[in-house]
């Protein structure tokens, strides 16, 4: 028990230290990028207060804007939750696959397919209110499951490596969406640009408070379901066994190929759910954004970092999703209030993951962590 507690404490400390280091590097970048503030450093020795004071003002304004924009008000929290919902779903997709020893780089494509199916049900099939939403969500789940299941099937039958197949499927999904938006099935009548009709209100996730919508709780529910699946279900036992040691799993009678297909299908469904969030989640103006090429953004790739940060565990993924959702929501505020470019938040995200993915690096920089032995497990497959 103490060993468990010690490992957990170390994991948390390293994550925290990684975050602090990322903020430090981000601060340096901010200072260097601002000509006025950077210029002051020429007088560092004659008028240190000017340089350091200027730098402090710059950094603290930006980071406090970030913080306030992320969690500083109910509005901010709602915005954070809306940004976090698709990240949590896609993060679960990547994390679940990791536990089975599979690298699901295809969450992006799976999310695109999910968004396409959900949006289509939303704008093309009129249905009574609650049923419309349910069918749209199910449609998105199924589309994602198929997109992921194909990868699992190819791996099981031919041994094709899922990294290559999922990356290619991402391209195919992107191309499919771009093409679909030029067809009469998907393109909004009367428009020549690739944009779909608006999703009917009956299929949208109901708004609960400003940007907070039902989709967020669906994401939390998905996390709970994945936690149950991994730790308490028969399928989860197989998934973990195949991820930890496929030879032993096979010798014990488990069907490694079938488990691979099932895992990729479930993962695909979860990433599809991220796409569903994007397609059916109300945006700032209260209405879901119509389907277009960039609708799901980069959620599939962000999901990889979310899963890594969350150590492929459902709770960790929820927290990591919230963190990155916060960075995203707060980043907008940071841009408007402190004139710091939104792209800095992307740099911050990347730095956090860099430092988390290189725990030895962090441990070297922070000496008191170095004394502890052992590895931080990222994929969770050998947790």
């Amino acid at each position, binding site marked *: 028990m103490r060993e468990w507690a010690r490992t957990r404490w170390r994991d948390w400390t390293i994550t925290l230290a990684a975050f602090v280091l990322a903020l430090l590097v981000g601060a340096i970048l901010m200072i260097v990028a601002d000509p006025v503030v950077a210029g002051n450093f020429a007088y560092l020795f004659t008028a240190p207060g000017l340089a350091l004071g200027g730098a402090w003002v710059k950094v603290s304004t930006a980071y406090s804007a970030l913080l306030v924009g992320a969690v500083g008000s109910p509005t901010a929290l709602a915005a954070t939750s809306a940004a976090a919902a698709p990240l949590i779903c896609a993060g679960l997709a990547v994390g679940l696959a990791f536990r089975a020893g599979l690298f699901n780089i295809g969450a992006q494509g799976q999310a695109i397919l999910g968004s396409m199916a959900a949006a289509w049900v939303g704008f093309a099939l009129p249905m009574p209110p609650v049923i419309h939403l349910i069918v749209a969500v199910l449609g998105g789940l199924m589309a994602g499951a198929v997109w992921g299941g194909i990868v699992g099937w190819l791996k099981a039958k031919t041994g094709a490596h899922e990294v290559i197949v999922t990356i290619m499927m991402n391209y195919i999904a992107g191309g499919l969406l771009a093409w679909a938006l030029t067809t009469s099935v998907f393109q909004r009548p009367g428009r020549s640009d690739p944009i779909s009709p608006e999703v009917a209100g009956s299929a949208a996730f109901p708004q609960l408070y400003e940007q907070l919508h039902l989709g967020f709780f669906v994401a939390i529910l998905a996390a709970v379901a994945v936690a149950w699946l991994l730790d308490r*279900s*028969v399928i989860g036992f197989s998934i973990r*066994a195949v991820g*930890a*040691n496929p030879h*032993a799993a096979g*010798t014990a009678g488990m069907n490694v190929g079938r488990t691979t297909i099932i895992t990729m299908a479930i993962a695909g469904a979860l990433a599809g759910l991220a796409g569903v969030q994007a397609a059916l989640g109300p945006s700032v103006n209260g209405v879901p954004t119509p389907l277009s090429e960039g609708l799901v953004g980069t959620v599939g790739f962000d999901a990889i970092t979310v899963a890594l940060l969350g150590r492929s565990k459902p709770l960790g993924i929820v927290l990591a999703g919230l963190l990155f959702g916060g960075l995203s929501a707060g980043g907008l505020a940071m841009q408007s209030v402190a004139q710091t470019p939104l792209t800095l938040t992307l740099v911050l995200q990347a730095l956090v993951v860099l430092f988390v993915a290189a725990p030895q690096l962090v441990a070297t920089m922070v000496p008191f962590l170095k004394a502890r032995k052992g590895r931080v497990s990222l994929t969770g*497959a050998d*947790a």
Partner: protein
Amino acid sequence: MIRPVSNQAEQADGLQLKGITKKFGSFVANDAVDLDIRPGEIHCLLGENGAGKSTLMNVLYGLYQPDGGEIVIDGRPQSFADPKAAMAAGIGMVHQHFMLVEVFTVAENLILGREPGLVVDMKAAKATVQELSARYNLPVDADALVEELPVGVQQRVEILKALANDAKFLIFDEPTAVLTPQEIDDLMVVMQRLRDEGKGIVFITHKLREVRAIADRITVLRRGKIVGSAKPGTSETELAQLMVGRAVDLSVNKQHADPGAVRLAVNGLTVANSAGAVVVDDITFDVAGGEILCIAGVQGNGQSELADALLGNLPVLSGRISLDGRDLTGATPKATIAAGLGFVPEDRQHDGFIGSFSIAENLVLNRFDAPPFASGLSLNLKAINDNANRLRDEFDIRTPDVQNVGSSLSGGNAQKVVLARELSRELALLVASQPTRGVDVGAIEFLHKRIVEERDKGTAVVLVSTELEEVEALADRVLVMYRGHIVGIVGPDTPRDVLGMMMAGVSHEEAVAVAEADASTAEGVE
């Protein structure tokens, strides 16, 4: 039993480990160990798995830095930052798992790490090989590819590598695990010859028979501490007691088998490995309920593939396998397990056991998806835990908590988990491959007893083993395999040297004839 300390002059010469302590975190692997290795002596280091023998040798070889104590050579204290420094000081190591590059020739392997000059001079390298080979009487072909050499010859290359570095002290780490009985005898001769040349030899082993055969001095290590020395004539029982710390019954209490009807019938079985080569060639045999059939043979002659084919892990090219009359040819592992097959794989780390899973989960690895361990889609965690506690008591699995991960168990206890898992089901056939590999003497006693108990319940038992002691102790019949064929099926009282020859492919009749000829020659000389 402790040897008296010799005089000062003798002590100054040679290699001494004084008070060596090595810790990993809070775990003390070596606790103030003193070891005295004299030139011209074979010093056997005996101990169970996990006793600290390998750690001690890794400290000596420069792979680990000791936390306390010192290494003294010829009166001068030394410290080795890496194996290169140890080699420079005259210490050579022959590893259990050879450190050879299989796709290189013998000569290329010999110069690995010490390539002479900027452009490799292969002629000089080959000359070195031939010179060393002649000097120490270890015949090898300098141009042969290592991967094409038999294991016994590969080991010779390992030994030459150590000698090429001008080793004065040679450490042999469990060298006989992969050798036939004849090759073991040859190795003993080599070691004695090297000793007679003045080399100091450390022979690490857990095989009591070998220790008694060639040791000049015996030191016993238990749980990181030296627990005593023994004189060369000490009996195996006493040595085992020193190693384990309690009296160990080395003989297996086995009543005569009472075989019933045939349960496993194998006909014309032919199996290919993953590379497509035929490794089991038209094999026919059967096993009755209530008997133990041992499949003997040197590693790599098709036994592992035979076991895998019985499980269903390897496809069958032709032939038939039936258990209790049911045709199981080509069945999946799930089906054979359901039909009553119990399987103890040869490599438990690789195939039998998931180190990151808890002990409780490992105990239901092949039964988790059915009642009582599952109801519908969910696992019944309580049933899994209760089962684990019950099996822990029944099989004496040493662990403080069945929820601990499997990798926390020692080799012997991990093997007990694998066996407990299989024996806790109703079995028609138990297939156990190398069930006591890497298992200490204390646990071996227990595992053998349980296997015999399973046989006495009427189960058919197929035991694949490369250890002749185990075969002699447990077999009711012995099937010898060589290059995928059956050389012969003989009784358990077949003499050792006959079995050894059969393991090298000689037919039973020929082997008996040769053995008798040898015996009468020996008698004639006397």
